[in-house]
């Protein structure tokens, strides 16, 4: 199977970095934003940002898939 491009993997690792590995940085109550504790706000924000990142990944990968050896 052809491996995904580095750019796609890099873009896709953003949500992982933001929602998973950096937990110690954002797991706080203050400052409360839009009435939400900071950790809940941060995760909710990234639920919205993740599809944006993945849309970029989709664009990157589907332009690669239009290579001549693939079906149109």
């Amino acid at each position, binding site marked *: *199977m052809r*491996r*995904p491009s580095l750019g796609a*993997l890099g873009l*896709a690792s953003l*949500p*992982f970095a933001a*929602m*998973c*590995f950096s*937990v*110690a940085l954002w*797991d*706080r*109550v*203050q400052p*409360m934003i*839009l*009435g*939400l*504790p900071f*950790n*809940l706000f941060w*995760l*909710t924000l*990234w*639920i*919205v940002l*993740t*599809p944006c*990142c*993945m*849309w970029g*990944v*989709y664009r990157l*990968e*589907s332009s690669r898939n239009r290579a001549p050896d693939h079906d149109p």
Partner: protein
Amino acid sequence: MTPAATALAVMAAIVAIGTAVGFLAGSRRRMDLEQWSVGGRGFGTVLVFLLMAGEVYTTFAFLGVSGWAYSRGGPALYALAYLTLAYVTAFFFLPQLWEVGRRHGMQTQPDFFSVVYRNPYLAGFVCVVGILAFVPYLQLQLAGIGIIVSVASFGHIGRITAMCVGTLLVVAFVFAHGVRAVAWVSVVKDFLMLFAAIVIGIGIPLAHFGGIGAMFAALAHAHPEHLVMPGATANLGHSWYISTVILTSCGFYMWPHAFGATFTAKSADTLRRNAVVLPIYSLTLALMFFAGFAVVLILPHFSDGDLGLLTVASRTFSPWFLGVIGGAGALTAMVPAAILLLTAATLFAKNLYRPLFAPGMSDDGVARLARAMVVVLGATSLGLAIHGGGTLVSLLLTGYAMVTQCFPGVVLGLYWRRVTGTAVFIGMAAGVLIAVLLMSTHRDPIAGLNAGFVALCVNFALTIAASLATRTDTAELLPGLT
């Protein structure tokens, strides 16, 4: 009408409509094995979206997440992260999996292992692991039906009666119509669930505190420690969070039913587009956090976390809406239960019994055996749900620790030519053994890490080491995978 009668009538009507949709769907199609289990591989973006979303919005999301937000606090946030990141992970292997599946006519997860690794024993083992991991998952759904219906009926229907009726309905429509029935019932319950989740998540804080912001302000003042990790627990801190999110986001599509649903898609691109869009669906999960955290202030001394949300809902809303919650909640438990039963039965008949015990069995024979197994498995899991314990989330995490052990075999099988069946077998066996040992001796979390994650690391390491140690014959590699 008394409040209980109103709630009951609304709830019964919703369950009846949902079930009727299940019976009507696909009743004009001839049900061969492929049609019954993967819908003839013809589902488009919308139906696959619904089928997959239907699997996300299970009792776990509805009661389990709010229950943990209430009883455990901060650690419950892992659910928001993992449901989102599961799709990110999926983007990179589901489309590839679908390609391989189409080329080789795969319907189930063990099919993948038997084609890629050409090892019937490995496929049989994957099958057994899948069915075992389903046990706590099914138990969760049926326990959920019991809780939802008994609270929503103001205690007029007992938990056990509710579980029995729910199981009976599920078994009946799965038995009759297979996967199409499930997809269309899922459509009905998704709309209802969304409606119920929005009203509950916004309505409860609004009715008791005047708004979501005011509720969080009150909670941050009274119990700020509850809102962050480890919350009300002793050992579910940041390392537990990271390890659990990794484990569960890798394991999400390792559930045999989610894996099988992949093959119902029309094209690989359908799956890519779904992986881009589906994370949005987890926004509704945030609503369950609003509700769960509100319950902390409303019911400060209440023993059963999973019951908290519904108890508050029954004091907040008018009876007809409680009936809507009850009906939607019951369908929300029944749809996944149906999918789990359907998958477990197909796995047993097609991937365990036929290859190992009755190689000459016809496809129709397999379909008949699978239907019989739906009944047997339904009855078994009902028995377990009646006698079982554990919070809904802990039941799910137990299943995840088991089922994620298939992950190395799938991902390495798709992307790494040197991996061998024997190595995958060794890694998986060690992973499952470690997970079961640690959890059954109550050593989860271990050293601050999720036990299933520790098992997964050992599994990966052993699979890679054993693959490098065993000789690889290029003829062993799947031609379509290169």
